């Protein structure tokens, strides 16, 4: 059987929801989970699969959204769901998509576009699973979405540092002490920017926040419609890990965007498009000071003015010196210096 090397797979065409009143009422993630009060990630799961619809398979790597979501006999998943290993969200998406594709093109299964979504937490995705996700984003012949729900720590195992934990945050692996006020000195990885920059044939990468639910669902729908492997990074406030009143989850999500700390954007076929309040920042609206965001959270309660100022400078740099503000952290050489060939 002769075949071309580029095999296009059909996808479901999921038009964006035009406003909250147009969102479908069916739920595919319902009761039966036991996440914490105020858990934003559970909301992300609900919105993610609501956006995807019933002809969807979801794979979940180890983390809160596995352990707290799927107790035997009480699954909240209405669509088929399967656990995958902590570092395997990329492989789970790829394997499921490849299995479906093989069976459909060989006539062993009814051919139809089935959404394949694999989710991972920040530990499973940005730490352990980054290699497999990266590989999957190069396999353009298989349709899948990898959604990183980032609550900025290993929250299921008692709140430990991940590569996505913000600078200085108090976790059980980075407790502030008398000799060291700041145990965690690393800056958070830029996952969406890295995935977009590093995988030229991945057609769609986006950042989302469930504080903006319709916008978030529409990014999921776009990712599934466009085809090939796609990636979405969701920032999820976590009352337990961030130490705040559960009623503030929605507000903290908004503040993460309004302070410019977490930009909302999508990269489609290499073009960056800011959206929501991030777009307003790009167009000139002032960013709120990061202290408004940080001081609402117990994990930063040990911060001094010096720490707050450092944090603010780092966020300012994202917006003032990055080649593509808050997306790609490269800077051009100073024009006059480069003209002189100075090093």
């Amino acid at each position, binding site marked *: 059987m002769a075949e071309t090397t580029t095999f296009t797979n059909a996808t479901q065409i999921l038009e964006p929801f035009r406003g909250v009143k147009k969102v479908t009422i069916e739920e595919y993630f319902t009761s039966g989970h036991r996440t914490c009060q105020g858990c934003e990630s559970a909301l992300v799961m609900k919105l993610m699969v609501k956006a995807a619809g019933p002809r969807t398979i979801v794979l979940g790597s180890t983390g809160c959204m596995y352990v707290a979501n*799927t107790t035997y006999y009480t699954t909240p998943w209405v669509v088929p*769901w*399967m656990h995958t*290993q902590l570092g395997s969200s990329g*492989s*789970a998406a790829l*394997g499921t998509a*490849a299995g479906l594709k093989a069976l459909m093109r060989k006539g*062993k299964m009814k051919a139809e576009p089935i959404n394949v979504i694999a989710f991972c937490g920040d530990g499973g995705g940005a730490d352990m699973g980054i290699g497999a996700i990266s590989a999957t984003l190069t396999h353009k012949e298989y349709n899948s979405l990898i959604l990183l729900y980032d609550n900025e720590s290993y929250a299921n195992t008692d709140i430990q540092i991940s590569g996505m934990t913000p600078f200085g945050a108090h976790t059980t692996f980075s407790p502030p002490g008398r000799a060291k006020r700041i145990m965690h000195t690393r800056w958070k990885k830029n996952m969406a920017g890295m995935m977009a920059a590093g995988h030229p044939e991945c057609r769609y990468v986006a950042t989302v926040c469930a504080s903006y639910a319709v916008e978030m669902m529409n990014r999921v729908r776009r990712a599934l419609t466009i085809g090939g492997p796609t990636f979405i990074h969701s920032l999820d406030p976590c009352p337990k890990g961030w130490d705040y009143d559960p009623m503030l989850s929605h507000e903290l999500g908004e503040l993460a965007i309004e302070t410019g700390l977490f930009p909302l954007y999508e990269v489609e076929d290499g073009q960056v498009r800011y959206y929501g309040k991030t777009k307003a920042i790009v167009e000139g609206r002032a960013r709120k000071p990061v202290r408004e965001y940080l001081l609402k959270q117990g994990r930063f309660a040990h911060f001094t003015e010096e720490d707050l100022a450092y944090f603010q400078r780092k966020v300012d740099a994202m917006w003032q010196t990055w080649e593509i503000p808050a997306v790609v952290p490269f800077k051009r050489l100073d024009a006059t210096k480069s003209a002189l060939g100075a090093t």
Partner: protein
Amino acid sequence: MAVATKAAPAAAEDKELLISGSEAVAEALTLADLDVVTAYPIRPYDTVMQAIAKKIANGQLVAEYIVAEGEHSQFEIVKHASTVGARVFCGSSGVGWAYAMECLVVTPPLRVPMVCLVGNRALDDPGAFGVEHNDALFVRDLGWMLCWIDSSQEALDTTLIAYRVAEDRRIFLPCAISADGAFLTHSQALTLVPPKEKVDTFLPRYNRGDLLLHPDNPITVAPQANEDWVIEIRRQNDEAMKRASTVIEEAYADFRRVFGRAPDNPWFEEYMTQDAEVVLVGMGTISLPIKVAIREMRAKGKKVGLVRLRWFRPFPTEKLVAALSKAQAIGVIDRDYSMGSPFMSGVVANEIRAAMYNADRRPPLLSFISGLGGREVTLEDVYKATEMCYGAAKAGRSDAKTHWLGVRD
């Protein structure tokens, strides 16, 4: 198959090809209409992936061929492809197999009937491409069916049998076929390749049934079970492994009916054991030098035989005990090690000791370790082991030690 080194007469419709063990597996996979395969390079198993790549490039096999970025992903990808109903193949060697360990652990409880080729290789460090069996043996307690083969023909036939057994709804467990690195993965022999029609008679399509992950069958797979259910799930796996004994015997009988070849005893090959005073035991291609040595020794009047163990999991306890308890002494030659284990023996020796514990007649058992890292097992090594077994037979007891053969002092 009384003498595995001689090929069965070719049926008219069989093709006869000069191919290596790895290539023979690739022939079987083509006949089995494999759906998804994942590759990652490590010697020596990777020859099978090279052979499959050629088949796909030439259009002889239509399958998703994914080159993964490491063995962990390699095994996870096919695990997931299997859950949506695809027939899958994977494989590795040595530390590559170890790198996939997490995925190897979860495959049996997920009841994924993956078939793998382990091209047995020493576990680096120090660097070594040669054969040792410790890689495949990592998973011996975890619900994998494990077998060892010693010829290209057996590689092809066992691959078809492995799918038939693994994908049987009574089983749904993964199966790893072990082929000694270099000695079998890279060595060519004349091999009969049956026609596709016969394979279709023998091997039904993989049917995932009620475990299929599909929007029409919205199930939740592998939730948090904890102390509420884990022990029951382990027990189910254990029952499946028990049933495998029956299903393997059925599969070999059916294979014989369809293809006109296959041993009467699937579990182990007996070579000149009928009247044997000393029976040597081993797995894989170690059979070749042992058989030569046995013929030489028999020419000098020593009645020596070989039991070449094919299936290690499930372990053929009763049949093996029956075969071995007739001997005056047993010599187990392990191509593996189990450091700190009882008598510091190899894995096979200790398994057989355990199996013999309740036997009415327990001949002295001597344990040998040989051929590690791919070192040749020589005729001299076999003669030496046999002499020691005769000594134990005469004394009526074993020395309860483990002897390393062919090691520099």
